C-alpha cells in the first residue's frame, strides 16, 4: 500500500502519462468479436497474424456498500476460502478450494462481492499457472473479464487482468495477453486519476489506494 503521499503523487502522474496512450488504444477494437480474436490467436494459422489485442475497457465506480448480514456472510465466506487456500500446501487442493469459492455468487447489492470475486479469480488463475495449467488459468478469468463487461474501478480488476494476461501468454494467446495487459495498465491509470480526483487538485494526489 502506498501510504506516503509524494509517492502516490508520482505514481499518479506516471500513470496519467501513459493514460493517453492507453485511452487511445482502447478505442481501436470497437469492432469485431473480441472472443473470436482470442480464439483465432490460439491457432497457428494464417489467421493468427490478424488477431488483434482487444484493449476495450468499460469501468464503473467501486463504492463500498453499507454492511449487511448477507454481506458479512459472503465476506466471511471469502476470507475463509482464502485462509483455507493459504493453509493448503498442495496446489491442486488450493485450486479446488478457490474454484469452489468462486462458484458462490455474492449477494445482490454487495459491491465488495464483485471485487472479492475478481481477487478470487485472479488467485485461482495464478494458482493454475503455478501448477502448470495455463488453459485452466485462462478459463478461470476469461469470461469474467470479457471486454464488453464493465469492471469495478479497483486494483482487483487490474490484478485479475494482469493474471489473465499471464495466463494467455502462457497459453500462446498473444492477442488476449496483450489486450489484457493493456487493459490492466489502463485500469491502473484510471485508478490514479480517480485517486487524484478524490484527493483534490491542490493536494497533489495523496491518499490511500482503494
Amino acid at each position, binding site marked *: *500500500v*502506498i501510504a*506516503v503521499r*509524494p*509517492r*502516490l*503523487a*508520482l*505514481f499518479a*502522474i*506516471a*500513470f496519467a*502519462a*501513459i493514460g493517453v*496512450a*492507453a485511452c*487511445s*488504444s482502447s478505442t*481501436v477494437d470497437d*469492432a*469485431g468479436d473480441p472472443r473470436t480474436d482470442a480464439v483465432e490467436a490460439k491457432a497457428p494459422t494464417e489467421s*493468427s*497474424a*490478424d*488477431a*488483434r*489485442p482487444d484493449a476495450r475497457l468499460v469501468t464503473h465506480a467501486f463504492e463500498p456498500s453499507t*454492511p*449487511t*448480514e448477507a*454481506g*458479512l456472510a459472503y*465476506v*466471511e465466506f471469502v*476470507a475463509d*476460502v*482464502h*485462509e483455507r487456500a*493459504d493453509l493448503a500446501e498442495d496446489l491442486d487442493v488450493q485450486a479446488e478450494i478457490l474454484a469452489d469459492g468462486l462458484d458462490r455468487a455474492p449477494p445482490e447489492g454487495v459491491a*465488495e462481492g464483485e471485487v*472479492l470475486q475478481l481477487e*478470487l479469480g485472479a488467485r485461482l488463475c*495464478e494458482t493454475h499457472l503455478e501448477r502448470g495449467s495455463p488453459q485452466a488459468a485462462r478459463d478461470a478469468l476469461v469470461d469474467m473479464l470479457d471486454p464488453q463487461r464493465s469492471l469495478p474501478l479497483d*486494483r*482487483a480488476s*487490474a*490484478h485479475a487482468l*494482469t493474471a489473465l*494476461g*499471464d495466463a494467455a*501468454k502462457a497459453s500462446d494467446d*498473444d492477442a488476449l*495477453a*496483450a489486450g489484457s*495487459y*493493456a487493459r*490492466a*495498465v489502463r485500469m*491502473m491509470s484510471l485508478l490514479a486519476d480517480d485517486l487524484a480526483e478524490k484527493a483534490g487538485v491542490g493536494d497533489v494526489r495523496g491518499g490511500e*489506494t482503494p
Partner: protein
Amino acid sequence: VTEHDTQTDRQRALEELRRELEAMGEPAATDAELEVLLGHASDHGYEPEPVAFVGRLVDISHAEAATLDEVSARRSWAAVESRTVRSVPAEATVEPREGAGRGWVPVLVGLVAVAAAVGLAIIVLPNDTEPTGAGGEVAGREPTPAVDPEQLEALSAQARAGLLAVGVDDTSASRRARKMRAQYREALGVEPGADPEEGAG
C-alpha cells in the same frame, strides 16, 4: 585476442574515462583512480560509457531540483531509463527503498510504464483512426502484424510493476478479504475474530 589487443583496449577505455570525467568537470583522475573506476565498471558488466551516464544522472538530478518541471524531469528520466532498460532487470526497478526522499519506486514504475506504453501504442494503435461500418466492422482494415514478443514482455512488465505499485502481491487478496471481514464485523458490531492479521493490509 592478443595480450597487446587487450592492453590497447584497456588503454582506450582508461582514456575514454579520463575524457568523460574531464567533460563532467571533475578534477583530473590519477591512473590509479581510473583503474579503480574501470574495475568497478567491469565488475558490474558496464562499458566505460556508463560513466558518462552517471554524470548525466547527476546533471539531471541537479537540473530537476533547480529548473525542470515535473513533466520535463520525467522526460529526462525516461531518456535515462531508455539507456538502462537493456541491462537492468525490470524487477530491480521497483525494489522498495525505504527512506528515499522523493519515493523512487513510483518514478521508476512510471518510467517502466512509459517505456512499455510505446510498445502498447505500436501494438494496438495502427488502425485507430479507421472508420467503422454499421455493423461495427472496421472498414479497410489492413492486416495487422502479430503481437511482437518483446512488446508483449514490455506490457507484462509494465502491468506487473503497476500492480506492485498499488500494493498487489501474492498475499494481498487474502489480506484484503480479512480486512473486509474485520470492517464488516466492526460495522455490524460482531465480535472480532481471533485472526491477528485482521485489520492489516
